[in-house]
């Protein structure tokens, strides 16, 4: 049984770099990591489909047993389009985050940490709500 080493190495590199980027704080890097991992998963599905064969299109002189497995290809096609949709959504989130806070870092939620450690609700703890930064677009709406 032969194994396609190039595909395996490509999957490994895409997953390694992708997971590294997914661990970052910046949403833009998370997006890039998501794209890399998505492509790595697609390659993995393709690789799982078995050895390469003829294109799965019925034609004269090509037996069904010589064809590549059509199921992984259909799954990958679905996955590519979904990845595109999610990528566009994360991009929109980055843009919104930039407009509101002029940054795309995912910071620790202090209130969430406090609730998790059992110190009570945040309103009881500090008594007042922090003022919004003045240079956001909500300034005129309030």
């Amino acid at each position: 049984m032969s194994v396609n080493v190039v595909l395996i190495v490509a999957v490994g590199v895409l997953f390694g770099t992708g997971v590294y980027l997914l661990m970052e704080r910046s949403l833009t890097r998370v997006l890039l990591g998501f794209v890399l991992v998505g492509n790595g998963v697609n390659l993995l599905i393709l690789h799982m489909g078995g050895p390469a064969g003829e294109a799965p299109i019925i034609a004269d002189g090509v037996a069904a047993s010589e064809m590549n497995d059509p199921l992984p290809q259909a799954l990958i096609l679905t996955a590519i389009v979904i990845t595109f949709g999610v990528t566009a959504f994360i991009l929109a989130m980055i843009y919104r985050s930039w407009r509101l806070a002029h940054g795309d870092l995912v910071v620790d939620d202090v209130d969430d940490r406090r609730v998790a450690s059992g110190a009570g609700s945040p309103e009881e703890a500090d008594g007042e709500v922090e003022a919004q930064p003045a240079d956001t677009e909500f300034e005129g709406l309030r």
Partner: protein
Amino acid sequence: MMGVAAAVVGVRAAAPVSAGWADLAYSFGGGKNIVNVALVDIRAWDTMGEISVLIAAATGVASLIFIRRRTGAPPRIPVDVYAAEPDARDDDPSNDDRPLGPRAWLLAGRTLPPENRSIILEVTVRLLFHTAIIVSLYLLFAGHNRPGGGFAGGLVVGLALIGRYLAGGRYELGEALPVDAGVVLGLGLMIAVGTGVVGLVLGGEVLQSVIWQWSLPVFGEVKLVTSLFFDIGVYLVVVGLLLDVLRSLGAEVDRQRIEADQL
């Protein structure tokens, strides 16, 4: 993951579920492209869920970008652009009601600052746009038997629209496809769901496809599989998604940036 990838090839114990798809695709699905028949017929529910996810993502993108209202078509060229530039009109006075003469390669090219324009890009996009639309329609209809399908065709239309937007700016998008992206998305999902419901109403299974064959005088033998309509629905959803992303992340972001520069 490399270990998983290396091991996964040798551990398959059961026969693949797609072993009989080659015969099924032609006898029941009526198509020779097994992957496309799998998408629109054998695994049609999967595709139905997928286009629903796409519509949710497109709506989410538009909601995040547009602050007050997110319906409506992309912006058309404002009238005062022409009024400010009388030489943009054709020399022939009978053409005065036409905003631009035939010399313009792209309709909205004059709305861009001159330093942002590229004549090579405008000419290339103008020459390629209609060809790309024809190719996408070919991919849509040929997809059942040859490489192609609703996804590929829709993405080609999206590429053509991206070219128009890149070359002509945000007004060019409105001139290229002056419809609301939500209407395209909704129409696509309606056609796809309608295909499934019609099968149910006529006494079959949901999303069951029927093969019609008849002979026409000029075209000869014509074979129509009803899953083509499902594919047209997928095509419209993909076009709508790309249009929605372009008008949100492209045109509206441009408008907000220009607005912020003017403050």
